[in-house]
């Protein structure tokens, strides 16, 4: 493991569990959208599938040791933050007919705003585990 930050112990353990849950939630949401109305609205499906992918990558990267996994985790969490802020703003402030039924719509309101809090928790934890590995 060397000096690479350990992201998969302590509070990170809980964080990874929540990320895994959202990977499943976003995947099932996109599966539901394929099953019901992919033809009329491919955009929500694509967004949900993208969110699912981001959560999946973040889950695996946080759970794995090593500095490459750490960098991937940082990138995934930043993309997640951008995703929830962009999709959240576009839906909450009504920019056109942006899809309302993805994990990130209205800043994750349908999921108790956890999708909005999660990337901040992720960045906090990534930073904290980096500091811990250096001391």
């Amino acid at each position, binding site marked *: 493991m060397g000096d690479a930050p350990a992201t998969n112990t302590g509070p990170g*353990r809980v964080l990874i569990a929540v990320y895994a849950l959202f990977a499943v939630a976003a995947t099932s949401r996109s599966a539901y959208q394929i*099953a*019901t109305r992919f033809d009329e609205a491919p955009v929500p499906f694509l967004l949900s599938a993208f969110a699912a992918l981001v959560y999946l990558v973040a889950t695996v990267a946080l759970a794995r040791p090593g500095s490459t996994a750490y960098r991937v985790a940082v990138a995934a969490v930043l993309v997640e933050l951008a995703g929830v802020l962009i999709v959240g703003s576009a839906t909450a402030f009504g920019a056109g007919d942006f899809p309302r039924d993805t994990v990130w719509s209205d800043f994750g309101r349908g999921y108790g705003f956890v999708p909005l809090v999660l990337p901040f928790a992720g960045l906090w934890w990534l930073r904290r585990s980096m500091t811990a590995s250096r001391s």
Partner: protein
Amino acid sequence: MLDVLAYVVIGASLAYAAWCLYAVVRNQVPREPHVIGAGVVELLLVVQLVVAVIMLAVEGSPDQLGVFIAYLVVSLLVLPLGLFWALAEKSRWGTAVLLVAALAVPVVVVRLQQLWDGVGG
């Protein structure tokens, strides 16, 4: 779906979650009683699965049968996966993982109910 059974499952998993929260606050690592507690909730979920399969055969299937079955499978996987992930962590955070898993169960059960009743989204 059988409403009464769903309420029992939701009540049991919330009670289990409260117990896990209490253990987290008291700085306890996940121990044998927590595994047994998860087993009890899991048993109720298995009962719900059996009842759901019987009702699928008797009353016919909901509109989104595939998604419904996917949620049924997920409902059984949440706690075993949570235990697997929790027990390797010898700190209060292991117990906190169990808390997260326990809180996910009622969400899945409510979604199952919605899918059965044909409510969208």
